[in-house]
């Protein structure tokens, strides 16, 4: 029973980390970044390269973040910038980019599955249950991401501009906020977070060119349900992620994999604003 509870919390933490990057992009730009999965993959391969070079784990994470952020900034400048007025086309173009990144990764690294050693191995004893130490670390990682995010948004000038753009872009522009710069930075941070989450999940899963894809749908659904706030994203990760673990454990893993998608679609049908203002 305790194992299930820990599974729920750690799964929610993973989902939260992966969705948070998608969330800020959606919040600021009102577009869904279909290349998010590809950036997760980029982060995982950056980790692979870093680990092969023998970099310490503490340097690998920033490496992954920066690689993702650079990819994101380029994407914004070359592709997404031109499509803000056509959000459905932005979905398609970023999906095309996802294909491109996936194939480039395949051309460089091959399509075979590879593994990265976890920096923390073994299990810890929690109230009589042996549990993967690395998964416990994920909870801490999720809390750090949430804290850094909140501080960035609430404590810095960039955060203030970002919140202004989220609330009313025209007004923000009128007041001298350079909204295209805000968008560039937001997209870079969002993509960097995707890559960071890719780096964090590598020790738990194998690395392959399509590894990001299975996470993408769940991340989407969580972002849509959360309605755009970090707080509700955490709540929905916990609720829907928890449901997923419960269904996988007690009913059937395949059904478990569908839980988030189906539940989120139904929640949105009944309450279009999702968990926001709930």
């Amino acid at each position: 029973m305790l194992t299930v509870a820990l599974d729920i919390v750690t799964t929610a933490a993973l989902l939260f980390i992966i969705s948070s990057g998608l969330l800020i992009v959606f919040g600021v730009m009102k577009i869904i970044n279909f290349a998010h999965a590809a950036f997760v993959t980029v982060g995982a391969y950056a980790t692979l390269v870093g680990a092969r070079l023998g970099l310490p784990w503490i340097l690998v994470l920033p490496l992954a973040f920066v690689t993702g952020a650079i990819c994101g900034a380029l994407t914004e400048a070359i592709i997404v910038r031109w499509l803000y007025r056509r959000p459905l086309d932005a979905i398609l173009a970023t999906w095309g980019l996802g294909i491109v990144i996936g194939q480039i990764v395949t051309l460089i690294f091959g399509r075979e599955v590879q593994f990265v050693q976890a920096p923390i191995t073994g299990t810890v004893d929690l109230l009589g249950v042996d549990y993967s130490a690395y998964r416990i670390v994920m909870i801490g990682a999720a809390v750090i991401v949430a804290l850094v995010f909140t501080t960035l948004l609430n404590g810095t000038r960039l955060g203030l501009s970002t919140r202004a753009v989220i609330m009313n872009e025209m007004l923000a522009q009128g007041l001298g906020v350079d909204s295209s710069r805000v968008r560039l930075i937001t997209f870079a941070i969002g993509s960097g977070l995707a890559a960071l989450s890719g780096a964090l999940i590598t020790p738990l899963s194998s690395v392959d060119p399509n590894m990001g894809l299975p996470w993408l749908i769940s991340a989407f659904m969580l972002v849509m349900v959360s309605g755009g706030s970090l707080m509700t994203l955490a709540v929905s990760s916990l609720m829907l992620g928890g449901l997923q673990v419960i269904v996988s454990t007690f009913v059937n893993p395949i059904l478990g994999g569908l839980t988030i998608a189906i539940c989120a679609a139904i929640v949105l049908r009944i309450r279009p604003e999702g968990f926001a203002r709930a």
Partner: protein
Amino acid sequence: MPEVRQFSQLAPAPLGLSAKWWMVPLAVVIVGSIALAPLVLDTYMVNILIRAFFVAIAAITVDIVWGYCGTLTFGQSAFFGIGVYALAIIFTEYGFGSWQALFAMGTSVVVAAGVGALTGWLSFYPGSTPLYASIVSLVVPIVLVQILYSGGTFTGSSSGLVGFETFDLELESWFRLAGLSLAAVAVVALIIMRSDTGRLLKALRDNDERCSYLGINTSRYRIIVLVLTAIIASLAGFGYAAFGAVAAPENAGFTFGTRLIIMVALGGRGTIIGAIVGALSIEVASAYLSGSLPYVWELIIGIALIAVILAFPDGLLGAVGRLGRGILPSKASATTQLRPVATADTGPAGSEVAMKVTGLGKHFGSLSVLDGVTFEAKRSELLSLVGPNGAGKTTLIRCLSDGRERSTGFVAIAGHAIDRLPPDRVVQFGLGRKFQAASVFETLTVAECLRVARTHRARPSPVSTSTVLELPAAAIAVVERSGLSDRLGEEARNLSHGLKQALELAMVLALEPEVLLLDEPTAGLTRAERQAFADILTSLASRDRLCILLVEHDLDFVREISSRIIVLHQGKIALDGSVQEVVDSSLVREIYTGQQAAACGAEP
């Protein structure tokens, strides 16, 4: 015999006739090449093209849902997969035979229609967003593939189903069957999309909200389109599996769904032909290239998709079309005749109540935007709603026209309580709403916009374009006085701001409303346009006996035309009286000049 007025720009009859004549040799060429091609092409190519023909049918359904109706759908692959698996499972379980084939086809149609209806119900409801519909369409193939994976030997799990007996036809016959099916689907789709019904679908894509406020149940139309395209896609999958004798989860998957979108995007969305061009070229090219250059080929597709979306949003066909349009003379638009419809007698001049509002309130949490708004309006009344910015005027208009908006209170339009009904139902009670910013169908012509506005009275034909447009006299009057009558064949996006406003008013009047809500109709109009508007409104109230509620900032304009004025202040009715009473009231002067007494005076 009603009077018929004709507004044709050119004499289009000979052109129209020659366009029809064009079709005959074209059809002969297409049918001929489908019949003869298998004799010329090598077996490998014929094999690939047969599959490509079935895929192209599925691509056409994506084009209809996305290109025409504006819903980016990833889900058509699921319906294709339903057809594939209906055949594979039934032939595997019961063997091959004529009743099995019919049973499989029936199952495919019924299941696809059911899943389509369920998806449609999930995706489309009053207030749903295109993004949400897209996301739901993404979930459908994912769920289906997981079901297939967990189906054990029944669905063949991840390896799919092979080795079942199927139709024994010559390769040439398969080619002709598939080719002619594709041609037939394409012709039917083109006819429907160019008919009045097709125009209505484009109107849904251009402006869903305007459609609802024209009394059109947009969700129902979208669900019907989804169910029909689901059935077609499933039959395409049925043919695909019948020919290939293989069923694989990839046939139903999300990746195939995105591949269909890529085909339509590359070929040119909203053209049908573009979907076919895209599907055939990608299928053929990937058959030749994916063997020798597997990753590079995928890379090329990805880059091509990005490039097309950025540079040619209307695809290759659109780009070619734009080049062609520069050289060829533009096509003459079909002539449209406006004919006044015989309006029902409005009855003796009485003073029936057209709109009744009691205790209406709108709250966001603890914030009250409107509170205790109560008034009545009779026919032939021109009632103006004035008040400073933020007084709740536009919110009130919204609460009167959409039953789901208000928090408390009662609203009746022409004697019908609006309950919690969505706008399309409220409009059917006899309400017409003109938005503040001109809301028309940008890519439709003026005549097409007006025809869409008549949808509730004249059901659009699914096969033809009517040349006669019946409009109520009031709408025709607006069209003629504004000068729109000379530009019936022009796309609405090319109109000036003033003409767009006039077009929207004419569209709303085409509904033959009893109650007309106008939100700052004169904003941004020239002096002359404004005067014309004033004349139109007063004659609508006096001659057509409409009850008009007008939101307006310009007090001079209001004074000139109103029969009664309501002053709204801080969400409450501060004053309700004749023009003279309101203009002379010190309260109004205080509200507008912002003196302190105003706030006290507003509290009843």
